[in-house]
């Protein structure tokens, strides 16, 4: 039987001590969130016991991918969550604590696509419906106002939210991976983990958008501020450990960019969907020409921006 010295690839002090004590044991390195080990621990089995051989070694932040991307099981591996896990992740996105990295602590190498997808879908409908309700409530006293459902706004909201939830994580992940390869830093997160973090961080906007129905301007801006602080801090706490080893300017610029994009989404939603306090019936007659009957969403947006100015 080979001694531990023959099989040693890395300096695992505890493992060699344990192995010397009990040569037949199998050794596993356990990823613990309190240690400073990088996320890409390679699990080596140093024992000769055939039954304890591990079949695969976990790759860098890897998900369990079974089959190629054209099989159904590949996508099924991204929905491997229970109700309690999803609820736990949502709770963590609403109450970010400075020590708890969302990815390390809650996702734990099991990113799911259920949360991001359905949170985005719910956000689309909640923003559109709440916007409709708030416009209706603010115009209720106006006899010239004729209620319209504004259904095309759902399409606009869907495009905006889903583009944000997929393109921005793509950009952040690409940036992280490029810096990791260029600067040899600690491990970056995988693409799915990034999408997961962004998806869950959007959850706070759902109750915020429902509360935006209350027609006080100062309350709406206060709610935006609170939501941005909570949601932004989830993102900052998650991404800070990855970029902090980089140069100071890069770290701060990337953090600022993440927070700024997040803020833009919130403010954009508020401005477009919740146009309160300006009666739409009153048009500045000198600058706005009567709009042609060929209405596209963009035309309406420009019209409304004219009204708000």
């Amino acid at each position: 039987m080979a001694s531990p010295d023959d099989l040693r690839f890395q300096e695992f002090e505890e493992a060699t001590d344990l192995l010397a004590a009990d040569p037949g044991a199998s050794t596993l390195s356990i990823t613990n969130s309190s240690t400073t080990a990088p996320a890409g621990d390679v699990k080596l089995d140093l024992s000769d016991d055939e039954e304890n051989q591990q079949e695969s070694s976990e790759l860098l932040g890897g998900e369990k991918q079974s089959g190629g991307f054209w099989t159904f099981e590949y996508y099924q591996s991204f929905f491997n969550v229970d109700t309690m896990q999803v609820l736990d992740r949502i709770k963590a996105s609403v109450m970010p604590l400075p020590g708890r990295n969302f990815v390390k602590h809650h996702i734990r190498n099991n990113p799911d696509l259920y949360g991001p997808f359905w949170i985005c879908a719910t956000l689309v409908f909640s923003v559109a419906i709440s916007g409709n309700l708030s416009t209706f409530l603010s115009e209720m006293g106006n006899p010239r106002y004729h209620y319209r459902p504004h259904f095309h706004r759902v399409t606009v909201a869907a495009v905006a939210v889903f583009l944000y939830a997929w393109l921005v994580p793509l950009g952040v992940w690409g940036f992280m991976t490029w810096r990791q390869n260029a600067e040899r830093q600690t491990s970056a997160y995988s693409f799915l983990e990034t999408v997961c973090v962004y998806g869950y961080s959007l959850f706070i906007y759902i109750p915020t958008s429902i509360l935006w129905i209350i027609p006080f301007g100062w309350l709406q801006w206060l709610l935006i501020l609170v939501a941005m602080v909570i949601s932004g801090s989830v993102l900052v706490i998650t991404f800070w450990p990855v970029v902090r080893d980089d140069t100071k300017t890069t770290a701060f610029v990337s953090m600022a960019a993440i927070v700024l994009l997040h803020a833009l989404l919130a403010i954009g939603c508020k401005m477009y969907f919740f146009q309160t306090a300006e009666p739409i019936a009153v048009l500045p007659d000198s600058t706005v020409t009567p709009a042609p009957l060929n209405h596209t969403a963009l035309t309406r947006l420009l019209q409304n921006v004219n009204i708000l100015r």
Partner: protein
Amino acid sequence: MAEVEDVNKPLFAGLSDVSIAEDIPVEGDIAVPLSSRNADDEISTLDEPVKDTILRDLKAVGQKFVHVLYPKKSSALLRDWDLWGPLLLCVTLALMLQGGSADSKDDGGPQFAEVFVIVWFGSIIITLNSKLLGGTISFFQSLCVLGYCILPLTVAMLVCRLVLLGSSGLVSFIIRLVVVSASFGWSTFASTAFLADSQPPNRKALVVYPVFLFYFVIGWMILTFSPSQ
């Protein structure tokens, strides 16, 4: 056979009890007789009058409507799924949602295509979701159940249009709100009665929530329908 018994007597003692006598015939015809139902189906559905064919399908659809209205744990919806009922309901709903806020501007209600897309793509996405979470229901069975359970909401749409013919003030709004909420709850309850059993128990809520969202959105479209003035 006797010599076999003699050779294997210590091993197969007692085999002589089960030996077949020579005078019992063991030949015959082993063809399985066709059941009369197969013979009828092959011959009659091609030559029957069109009215019979249509009525048979309509009867199947109507039977499933009854199963939706009184949801109990029956397997009729799942076993004999068809998509005629969902198509009928979707077209009816989309047609009834037209003709509102007709100032010929596009700030009105959902267009016909939008309703169609929401209903069918919503059903497909929910089905995919439940399958990805490990459900055992098949794709078309799930589409069938989700489509048929739109029936209470279609009835609510009908009631709403009738109420709006009378008045469109606060009272009618409250009536419509109550009717739509009741039918939304009915739809969600009916579909979960059929779908919930096919899921692993610790993921039931994950599957029920998208169904809830789906019917909520359809209920919202019905509630916010405002007629042209």
